[in-house]
């Protein structure tokens, strides 16, 4: 039995108070002068019985109530660590899992965690080996398995909280792998964390090897009020040549008291506006800054609030990219029909996420220069170009541009020879469906990015559009049919060409062969298709720490480098200054975002500071400091797998945590309450008989 607040035990001295008062002091307060005590001395002592305890049960109950209260305030708990430590013998293979998620920077958590890690190192036996693993969303060993305390101490000293979110699964999996390879007789995993509920997913079916002792050190303490900038959005507007943005931020407060804060908007690294806002307790408030004029290109924006106990979420980074308009070139026949490109042009002219800039050229007037800086080229019932224009277009598509081929009434059924090996799609004869009131787009691959928006019920019905004529597209296995007509003929076929995409639409894109442009789904369909082709699909103003960023899906980030013709590599510079090189070749170009702030993506020949900023913020899920019982985690990772024996479990925590879990004080208070009730009943009963004299002390027969 150990006490968390042993100094309260001094209160036991209060037990002496009733005895002292009643045996020594009480009767001295009243003195009665009397002529002589001669007769009183003759009375047998049994009748006088002065200064003698009476009603021992009552007195014992009162002392017990007092003792229970004192013991409850001393907060006792049972410390099983010593017994557990004494029970085990032999060298240990120990893995210390030290949480370095950004929630660990809250208050004194990191200091406590480091102290706990150092304490664990200091308790290391002569033959023990220890590995320090730092983990957040991912886990990495900071040291090799070692018995060197200085090495471990240095690794602990070098560790610091990052910007990542907590995930226990990868860390425990790594520890398991390390322990499985150990030849020492005793295995132990020490988890030092704040045990956020968001970090543990029950579906993470990770387990430690049988016989492993899992101990925990919980550094979370008490209430965790926190202010965070949860989100910031920038609405763009244009007045003449001036571009303005209106930024609105949402600030959350998890504390029990309302907070008034000054929120500051920074654009381009300079303060643009500051607003005062009151955030209600356990609520959120929106701060809407006045419209601010921004220059072209990508501008860095930050919404800040004063730093609190968890500073990592006191700023929200975002980018305002006005230069991200998608340039679209529509090539129509030399003698086009009236309004042949009108519907497409008008549809793309609407909207700002992204903004489409559409230019229309006649096929006979197109030059290679017209293709420059185009993200999308639309061949509106025009044959694939040949010659210099065709070569340039082919080059662009290979580099990542999108090509939409509207089959329609185009002449010829096969691509030119220079396109042929790479584009194995043939245009078949015209299918006339006018006699059966037209066909419809019946089979859609809603998993395709262009149709994903329509997957939900009542989010767009393609079957209402009538297609009276279309070309029978013939594709080989290298292409993908994204949508089919009701007769099974391909309606939309996609083929990847290099880093770019070529999409075929079997009918026209005006009302010549179909009434699709007159249907409500036309506008979103064109927008989604254009975003897909231009790889603007996942365009966002900010990203999350540890979120995988596939640059091949973010044309808005790499478009400028396609234009400038930077070689085959890009440089990604982190807020801390560290750089990584990302090759532009290959299907996927993954960038790792481990820090909050602004990354800069630039070409190898691009000057520092002139690249494309990428805003990265901490995962707000980590800001949810909800706590869960470490025993829950220990039970899950030590549960016996099917067909195996149970793992040994030993949980260790800070004395405060052990005491809080055991809550012995609560039982003591209840016992004190019961004793107090019994004392009242007994006292009343004795009092009614007239025998009670001051706290069970007194004289009487």
């Amino acid at each position, binding site marked *: 039995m150990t006490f968390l607040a042993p100094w309260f035990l001094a209160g036991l001295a209060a037990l002496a108070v009733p005895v002292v008062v009643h045996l020594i002091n009480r*009767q001295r307060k009243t003195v009665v*002068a009397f*002529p002589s005590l001669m007769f*009183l001395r003759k009375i047998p002592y049994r009748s*006088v019985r002065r200064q003698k305890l009476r009603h021992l049960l009552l007195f014992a109950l009162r002392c017990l109530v007092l003792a229970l209260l004192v013991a409850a305030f001393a907060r006792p708990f049972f410390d099983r660590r010593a017994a557990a430590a004494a029970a085990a013998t032999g060298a240990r293979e120990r893995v210390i899992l030290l949480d370095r998620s950004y929630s660990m920077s809250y208050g004194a958590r990191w200091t406590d965690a480091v102290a706990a890690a150092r304490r664990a190192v200091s308790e290391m036996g002569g033959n023990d080996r220890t590995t320090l693993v730092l983990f957040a969303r991912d886990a990495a060993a900071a040291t090799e398995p070692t018995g060197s305390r200085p090495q471990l101490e240095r690794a602990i000293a070098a560790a610091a909280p990052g910007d990542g979110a907590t995930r226990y699964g990868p860390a425990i999996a790594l520890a398991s792998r390390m322990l499985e390879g150990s030849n020492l007789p005793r295995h132990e995993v020490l988890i030092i964390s704040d045990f956020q509920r968001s970090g543990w997913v029950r579906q993470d079916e990770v387990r430690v090897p049988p016989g492993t002792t899992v101990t925990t050190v919980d550094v979370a303490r008490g209430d965790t009020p926190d202010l965070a900038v949860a989100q910031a959005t920038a609405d763009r507007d244009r007045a003449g040549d001036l571009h303005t943005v209106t930024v609105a931020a949402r600030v959350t407060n998890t504390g029990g008291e309302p907070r008034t804060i000054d929120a500051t908007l920074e654009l381009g690294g300079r303060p643009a506006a500051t607003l005062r806002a009151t955030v209600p307790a356990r609520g959120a408030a929106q701060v809407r800054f006045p419209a601010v004029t921004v220059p072209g290109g990508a501008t860095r924006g930050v919404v800040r609030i004063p730093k609190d106990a968890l500073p990592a979420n006191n700023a929200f980074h975002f980018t305002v990219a006005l230069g991200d308009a998608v340039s679209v070139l529509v090539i129509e026949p030399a003698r086009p029909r009236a309004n042949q490109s009108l519907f497409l042009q008008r549809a793309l002219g609407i909207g700002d996420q992204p903004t489409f800039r559409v230019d229309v050229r006649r096929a006979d007037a197109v030059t290679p220069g017209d293709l420059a800086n185009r993200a999308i080229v639309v061949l509106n019932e025009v044959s694939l170009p040949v010659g210099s224009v065709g070569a340039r277009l082919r080059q662009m598509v290979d580099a990542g541009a999108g090509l939409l081929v509207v089959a329609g009434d185009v002449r010829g059924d096969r691509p030119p020879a220079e396109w042929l090996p790479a584009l194995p799609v043939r245009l078949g004869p015209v299918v006339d469906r006018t006699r059966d009131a037209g066909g419809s787009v019946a089979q859609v691959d809603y998993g395709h990015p262009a149709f994903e928006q329509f997957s939900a019920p009542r989010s767009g019905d393609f079957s209402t559009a009538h297609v009276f004529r279309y070309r029978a597209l013939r594709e080989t296995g290298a292409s993908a049919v994204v949508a089919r007509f009701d007769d099974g003929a391909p309606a939309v076929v996609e083929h990847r060409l290099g880093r770019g995409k070529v999409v075929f639409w079997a009918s026209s894109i005006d009302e010549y062969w179909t009434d699709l442009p007159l249907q409500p789904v036309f506008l979103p369909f064109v927008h989604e298709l254009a975003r897909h082709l231009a790889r603007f699909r996942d365009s966002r103003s900010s990203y999350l720490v540890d979120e995988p960023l596939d640059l091949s899906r973010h044309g808005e980030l790499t478009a400028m480098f396609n234009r400038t013709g930077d070689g085959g590599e890009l440089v990604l510079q982190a807020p801390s200054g560290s750089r990584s090189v990302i090759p532009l070749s290959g299907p996927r170009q993954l960038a790792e975002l481990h820090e909050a702030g602004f990354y800069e993506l630039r070409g190898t020949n691009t000057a520092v500071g002139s690249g494309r900023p990428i805003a990265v913020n901490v995962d707000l899920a980590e800001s949810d400091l909800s706590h869960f019982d470490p025993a829950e985690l220990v039970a899950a990772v030590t549960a016996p797998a099917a067909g195996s024996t149970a793992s040994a479990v030993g949980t260790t925590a800070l004395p405060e945590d052990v005491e809080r879990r055991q809550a012995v004080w609560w039982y003591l208070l209840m016992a004190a309450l019961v004793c107090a009730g019994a004392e009242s009943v007994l006292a009343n009963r004795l009092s009614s008989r007239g025998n009670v004299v001051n706290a069970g002390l007194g*004289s009487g027969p």
Partner: protein
Amino acid sequence: MRDRHPERSPGHPGRSDGSAFQDPIATFLDPTVLARIGNLELLARTVVEGFIGGLHRSPRLGASTDFAEHRPYSSGDDIRRIDWKLYARTDRYHVKEFEADTNTNLLVLLDVSPSMHYRGDGVSKLEYGSFLAASLAYFSSGQRDRVGLATFDRDLVDYVPCAARHLRLVLHALDRANRAASASGRSSAPEALGTTHGAAGNLRSSLSVPLQRLAEQTRRRSIVVLISDLYEEPDAVLSALAHVRGRGNELIVFHPLDRDELEFPFTDAANFLDIESGERMPLVPDYLRAEYRAVVRRHTETLARRSREQQVDYTLLDTSRPLDAALFGYLAARQRRGTART
């Protein structure tokens, strides 16, 4: 603290039945009323005249020198009283006894020890004793007796020899004793008593020493009236009285006790302080009262019985009761004896 409605002893005259207040005698003899009279002589006169005026027959005894009887000579008898003629006939010493003459001695022995200072709700025992002594002296002086007074605690404090004209001296001596008691009473708060008396040591009165010294100083046989609270064992009391009784003196003992001493009406637990010794004793009176009363009753009964055996008149006085009980006791003793022997 103290029960303000103590039980009344049955058959004892007093105020308990209310009729006493309508009795002029009782009114004159009420000690609380008498306490307002500052002059002891006036007080004594008031008592005696009021008392006598209420009687239906005069208690005055006629003067006489007639022979009464012979009695064997005992140690201490004046050899001048030996009847030598009878000795010649019988060869034994006999003393001639005569009917009382009117010029007898009245010597009042008043205990002025600290325990006599105790005051309950009314007058202190010392005041009560002083009233009684003054009244008896005045009464006797009116019969041309010689009156004297001796005050004592552990030893003789003041002594006024018996003489026909010593009434004033007796009253003055009583007045001094009361003044001395008042002076000490101002510092007799319970808190102070513990230190005062404790530091002074044991001031408990002792009858033996003063009575022995008094017996040595008195030559003539006297009517000796002892007024004391008799806080001694009955054997010690009777042993001390033998010093006086052995001289052929008539001895009348008045035993004044306060109502608190008789009834022990205290209710709250407290430290009880012995006024004379300074000793403290923590007590819960509720649980002692019955046994205390029994002990006191046994004590007074023993005193009364032993006194009768020693031919000593013993009267227990309650200081809250009128003085008539004491005066009746005195006169009854005189009458029971018929005459005083000289």
